[in-house]
Structure formats: C-alpha cells, structure tokens
C-alpha cells in the first residue's frame, strides 16, 4: 500500500479499504452525553484525524475504539464485521492499540520493562531480559531515539517518555494505532521524528487515528478529517477538500457568541499586582514562571492564553498560595500577601478556580450544597455551631446566582454535568465575596452553552467591580469577554493584546503555529 491517496471521497472507496468504522456511536455518563451519534471510517494505511475542542468527545471516542469503554449504543465495525471490544487487551489482540494523552508508563521501571509490561518474553529461566532488551533497542533505533533500554522511565524527559509509549504500541504490531495528542509534550525535533515514523507506518499498511490540538501540525500529516463538536460529528472529508478555516468553522460552529467585554464603566484601582514573580517548575529544573509582571484592575477581565506548560497554572497557583515563589511578590489591593495561607487569601478576597475540577475543585463524597458552601463555612457559623438555615439560604442563592441545573442542594455532585459542576466550583468561590477571581481553564470539558453562561456570569461580576483573570487554550475564548489578552510562553509574557486583535496574532505569539 502506498500512502498518499488524498483525492478520493471516503464513500467512493471500495469497502475493503475500510478497516475500522464507527456507526451511530453514542456514549453517556450519567446526565452527560459525551457522544451523540458518530459515524466515520478509518482507511488502511492512512491517517484519520479527529478534530474538536476540549469536551467535544474526541477522547471518549478514542476510548471506545480502543476498548477502554463501551459505547452506550451503536456499533464498531472491524474489517467489515461488527465487533464488541471487551477490553484494551481484546482490542490489542485485534490489532488496535492506543497511545493515551496521559502517559501510562510505570516510572519506577526501565524502558525495556515498560515496553514488555504484561507480555514479558518467557525464556528458559523466567523472563528473557536479553531478548527484550534487543527488541527494545531495535524499536528505539527505528524511532531514531537515543534512549537506553535500561534507563528508568522517571529519569527520561517527558518527550522521551512519550516516545517510549509509542515504541510500546509499535512493539505489539498494531494494525490500527490510535494517538491521542501524541505531540503535546514533544519538542519540534521530536515531532519531526514522530511524523517520519508515521509515514513509515503508513507505508507498512498501518492505519492511524490521530488527535491533536495543533491544527496546522495535524493537517500536515492527515489523510482524512473528522470534526466533532459537543459530541456530534459535524463534518467528515478527505484532506484534499479541507483547509484550516474549514476545520475551525466546523469545530466552533456558527461563531457561537461567547460574549464581548463589558463596557460602559471605568476600571478601579489595581486589585491584583504581580511583580517580578518567579515560580520554580515542578520538575525542579528551571522556572515555570520567569520574572513575570501582571496588574489587573478592579472590574477588568484579563485572559491569559498559552500552550500547555507555558506556566499559566503555576502563576495562578502561586498567587492563590498553593505554590511558593522564589522571587517577586503578589499584592492584593497594594498589600503584599506573601506568606498568607490559602484560607487567608480567600478571606482577603483572592480566590482560585482550579484547572482540574475533579481533582482540585470538588469533593465527590459531598453533596452539591456542601460543595457550594465549603469555602464560606465561616459565614454561617455562629459561635461553635453552623446554622443550617443560614447555610441553606446561602446555597439556594448561589444555585440561583450561577444557574446550576440540579435536583436540589442534596443531589450528589457526580450527578451534575461537567458544565454544572464547573458552575458549582465557581459558585463556591463567588459566595466568599472575592475582589479578585482567577479561573484556570474555566471552560475545560464543558459544552459551548455552559461556556457562554460562565463567561456571561463573569462579565456581570466584573461590571460590579470584580477583577477577573482566566486562562484558556482556545483562541476563540480569548476573544470573548476579556478586555486584555496576555499570551504566555515559557513562563514569560510574550505578547499583550487588546480585545480587538485577531486569532492569528494570538496564536503566533504563543508559538503554536511555529511547529513545522
């Protein structure tokens, strides 16, 4: 099979060419419908890329194709036969292999052990380590990566770990290889290596399902494009018929209105002043935030845009008191708040809505109401005891205020959809009457309607004098309610824009489009 057959419409192809197909696949998690009927084909020896924003359902679809999860309805067709993939092992035996976005390596073990984990080569005396090592070396040579098979995974750079993950998938002779954001942690040269490998694989007849946020990068490698939006498949076309604009249009839809910067009032005094701030990176090498200055006035909305690892999260977690800075200061209304605990900063009016809702935002074992009131227990505690009546009042006001759709304050937090869970996290912080709110990726994993509602809520609060800082990795969200857009790159501000800038300018400043 020779790879580049760009110019045929998928339905015009003979049926034998389609190795894997999805038909009317849906998937629900409780109240959340992650996929609402998806159809597409994967062609032998070609790359099919899934495009879509966060929460569009790409990762869910991948998990279904690789046997991690089962579809709620619909069928997966492999080589023309409907199949039920019971597990990843089952999928692997049928030749479908997935490389997850989150690395699934055992950091305490060697490269060799990781590659052969679960299918060790048996020798006369237990495991045949020499043979494993030989094969590992061969695989890594094919990938043109100079990694010692006996090195521990935890000692490798993140990009190298990703390569190991890819090597593991290749080692099982996968016919269909699913790559979920494989380049997100790779350097430009590593991406080149990967793309070369992908070309080799295509020549060998391996089909590839590819997911990436780097649209331009994905366009250089793909043969077919499938676009998802809010769990729906919005478009499906071969490479020859599409371009960047087509993808963005289908991803975002008819320019869904995410609001505009609130106008008609003057900003107040500086609320949050970050001066010369340095935060060490969590790996211990270098700085995640590198001598950064930022000032946000009361009533102002600032958006911080940047790629993964640009230092946005570290900046916010440091300002919130979770991480320590090595240099510089954080001032709230002119007062230095270094040394204050997280609780003290919340009392002083500075709150953070963390990036990872499940891990950092919600207490899954508590109800919607108790999650909402968690940060403001002091407001309804009289003397020693909490006042349930006062608490219920606060909770009910908050549910109405941030428009949480729930069966009531006593519903389980897990019964809410992602968007409503996010509103609970935001609501929890708004109840404390903050003067500065920082939101790390507030739109992550929530549908477009909920996004608009969250932004509207923030815009209204800003009008009342709240200083808002939010981060995003979606350019469209920069150009919504923010008065000012800051682009971060490697811990520093690489550019600053007012709200009338263009998507292209923002992306260029982040370094996104520089990847070949």
């Amino acid at each position, binding site marked *: 099979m020779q790879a580049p057959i760009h110019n045929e419409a998928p339905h015009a192809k003979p049926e034998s060419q389609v190795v894997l197909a999805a038909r009317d696949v849906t998937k629900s*998690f*409780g109240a959340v419908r992650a996929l609402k009927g998806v159809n597409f084909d994967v062609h032998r020896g070609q790359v099919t890329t899934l495009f879509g924003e966060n929460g569009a359902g790409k990762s869910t679809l991948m998990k279904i194709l690789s046997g991690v999860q089962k579809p709620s309805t619909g069928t997966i067709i492999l080589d023309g036969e409907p199949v039920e993939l019971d597990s990843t092992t089952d999928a692997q035996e049928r030749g479908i292999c997935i490389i997850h976005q989150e690395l699934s390596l055992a950091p305490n073990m060697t490269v060799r052990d990781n590659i052969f984990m679960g299918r060790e080569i048996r020798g006369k005396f237990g495991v045949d380590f020499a043979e494993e090592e030989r094969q590992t070396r061969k695989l890594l040579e094919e990938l043109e990566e100079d990694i010692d098979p006996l090195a521990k995974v935890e000692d490798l750079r993140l990009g190298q770990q990703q390569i190991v993950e890819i090597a593991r998938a290749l080692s099982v002779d996968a016919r269909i290889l699913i790559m979920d954001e494989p380049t997100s942690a790779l350097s430009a040269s590593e991406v080149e290596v990967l793309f070369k490998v992908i070309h080799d694989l295509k020549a060998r007849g391996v089909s590839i399902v590819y997911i990436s946020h780097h649209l331009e990068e994905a366009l250089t490698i793909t043969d077919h494009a499938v676009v998802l939006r809010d769990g729906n498949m919005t478009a499906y076309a071969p490479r020859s018929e599409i371009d960047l604009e087509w993808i963005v249009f289908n991803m975002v839809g008819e320019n869904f209105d995410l609001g505009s910067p609130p106008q008609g009032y003057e900003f107040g005094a500086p609320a949050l002043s970050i001066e010369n701030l340095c935060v060490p990176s969590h790996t211990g090498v270098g700085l995640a935030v590198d001598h950064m200055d930022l000032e946000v006035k009361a009533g102002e909305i600032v958006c911080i845009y940047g790629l993964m690892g640009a230092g946005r999260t570290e900046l916010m977690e440091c300002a*919130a008191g*979770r991480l320590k800075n090595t240099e510089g200061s954080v001032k709230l209304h002119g007062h230095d708040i270094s040394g204050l*605990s*997280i*609780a003290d900063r*919340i*009392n002083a009016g500075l709150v*953070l809505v*963390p990036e990872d809702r499940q*891990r*950092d*935002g*919600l*207490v*899954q*074992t*508590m*109800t919607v109401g*108790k999650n909402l*009131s*968690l*940060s403001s*227990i*002091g407001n309804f*505690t009289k003397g*020693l*005891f*909490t006042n*349930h009546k006062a608490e219920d009042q606060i909770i009910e006001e908050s549910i109405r205020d941030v428009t949480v759709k729930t069966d009531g304050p*006593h*519903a*389980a*937090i*897990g*019964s809410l959809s992602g968007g409503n869970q996010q509103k609970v996290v935001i609501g*929890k*912080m708004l109840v*404390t009457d903050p003067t500065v709110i920082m939101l790390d990726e507030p739109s992550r994993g929530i549908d477009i309607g909920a996004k608009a509602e969250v932004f509207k809520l923030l815009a209204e609060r800003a009008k009342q004098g709240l200083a808002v800082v939010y981060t995003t990795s979606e350019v469209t969200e920069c150009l919504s309610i923010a008065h000012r857009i800051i682009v971060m790159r490697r811990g520093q501000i690489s550019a600053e824009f007012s709200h009338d800038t263009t998507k292209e300018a923002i992306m260029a400043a982040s370094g996104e489009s520089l990847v070949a």
Partner: protein
Amino acid sequence: MADTTASANAPGKKSNVSIGKMLLEGRAFFALIAIIAIFSFLSDNYFSLNNFLIMSNHVAIFGLLAIGMLLVILNGGIDLSVGSVLGLSGVFAGWLMQGVELESMGVILYPPVWAVVILTLTLGAFVGLINGILISRFNVPAFVATLGSLYVARGAALLMTNGLTYNNLGGKAELGNTGFDWLGFNRIANVPVGVIILAIVAVLTGLVLTRTAFGRWLYSSGGNERAAELSGVPTARVKITVYVLSGICASIAGLVLSSQLTSAGPTAGTTYELTAIAAVVIGGAALTGGRGGILGTMLGAFVIGFLSDGLVIIGVSSYWQTVFTGAVIVLAVLLNSIQYGGAKRR
C-alpha cells in the same frame, strides 16, 4: 455516574433522610437486631435490661476507641496506636495513683483523681499530637507513623511497670485520692458510668461532625484533600486535630477499662485498634475517607460487642468468636464496596 446513591453522605441531615443513607446506616442496625433476636432465642439470659447494660459497658471500651478511629478514618487516615495508647494510659493512671515520688524533695505526691484524669488525657493527646505532626508535617504515611507509636507506647507501658500490673487503684481516703473506681463500677440511674461516658462522647462527636465548621472541614478534606485545601480548609490543622482527638478517646477508654478492672496492666488493649477499625468499617465508613458517621460507628461497635458477648453467653468457644467477628467484618466491607462501587466509575 448514573446512580445517585452518593447522596447517602448527608450525615446528620435529619430533615432529609435519603434512601441511600437509610440503607447505609440501616445495614448495621438490621445486623444488630438480628444478633439480638438470635441470641435471645438461643439463651434465656440474653434478653434482659441488665444484660444489655453489662454488655454495653463492655462495648464502651471499643466504642470510645472507634469514635476516635472514625474521626481519623473520615480524614482518610488510620490510627493503629489506639490500643497501645489505651494500655499506656491505664498504666500511667495507675502509676499516678500509686503516688509519684519526688526524690529531690523527699515527698510522695498523691494527685487527686481529677488530676489523674486530666494528666492521662494529656498523655493521650500528646501521643496523638506526635502522630499528627509526623503525618501532616513530615508526610509519614499514617499507617507507618501510627504503627511506630503502637510499638513505642506499648514499650513505654511495659517499661513503666517492668511488665507488672498496678493493682489497688482504689486510692486511700487519708490521701484524698479515692474515687478512681467510680468510672468503672458506679451507675447513674442504673446505667454504668462507662456507658454514660460513651454516650456523651458520641453525642459530642455527632455534634462536631454535623454542626460545626470543623466537622465540615473533616468531611471535605477526607473526601478530596486538594480541593478542600484550595477552598481554604486548613487541612494540616484538621489532620493533626483528628489524631489528637483519637489519642484522647483512647485515653478515656484506658481510664474506663482500668477502672472497670481496678488494675492497670501494660498489655491491656492489645489488638483493640483492629476491633475499633472493624467497628468503624461495619458502621459503613469508607477507609478512603469522607464517608461515614457517628451513628453507624456506634452500631458497628454494638454489633461486635453484642455478637462476642452473645457467643460467650451461649457457651461458644472463644476461638469461634474470632471467626465470627472476622466474617462479619468481611461481610460489612463487601457491602460497603458494593454500595460505593457504583459511584466510582471512570
């Protein structure tokens, strides 16, 4: 996450008892009813008020330990030292009752009983404080830190008595330190003092868990420590406090036990920590933290106590008691994981 049984964790919300909660805490309740019914059928002596009070007095020891353990487990930790702290507290109280000789001044001090009680509780709190600091400040896993204090406290108790037992804790009227046996022997309105103490501690703990900010902090930091911390909960302080409270509960139990026995032996309370954990688990608490309540834990303690006393009354070998207790624990945990299993899909 289709099912909504997770709403079971609305502890103490008396105004809205959900079905999930009834199932959760009802389980231990039905087990207790079944135990009482079966033993009443097997033995004429079992079903009488007096027997219930005697059994409850036994339960008081485990119950007090279990309350402290509940706080720790709600926080997502474990406290293996409570059995040893119980023993150490008894010995320490006994040592104080025998008179403390100050050699330099050539006098022997006989502290009054109230002072003995306060000093002993302080000792329990101190051991708990060390556990808490090790776990919270120095990130020693709770299992290991409290395993260490299990050995240290037991060793200290053995050293204090040289392996012997303090008898005669009654005190002498002329020394003004009588009354220690009041805790274990006296009855108020025919109810043993030990049971009353258990009830008071249980009610106080229930109030703390459901009606105070600390209670809410405890549930939230046990449910998701990172989220709680970012919400402004002083998670480190909460963690240290629960171990201190657990130590105090163990000391109370040590005082009650040594008073009941009118003697304090250094090996008292060996393996009681496991019984306390069992009571908490039977009561429906999750070892991962964040789920559980005082009512369940009390029922769990009574299930264990009434079961083993019942087996004694009908004359079953004590070896069988061990087997039965083990089976009940496994059954309880099995039901817990069935109940909570539905909420953890991802």
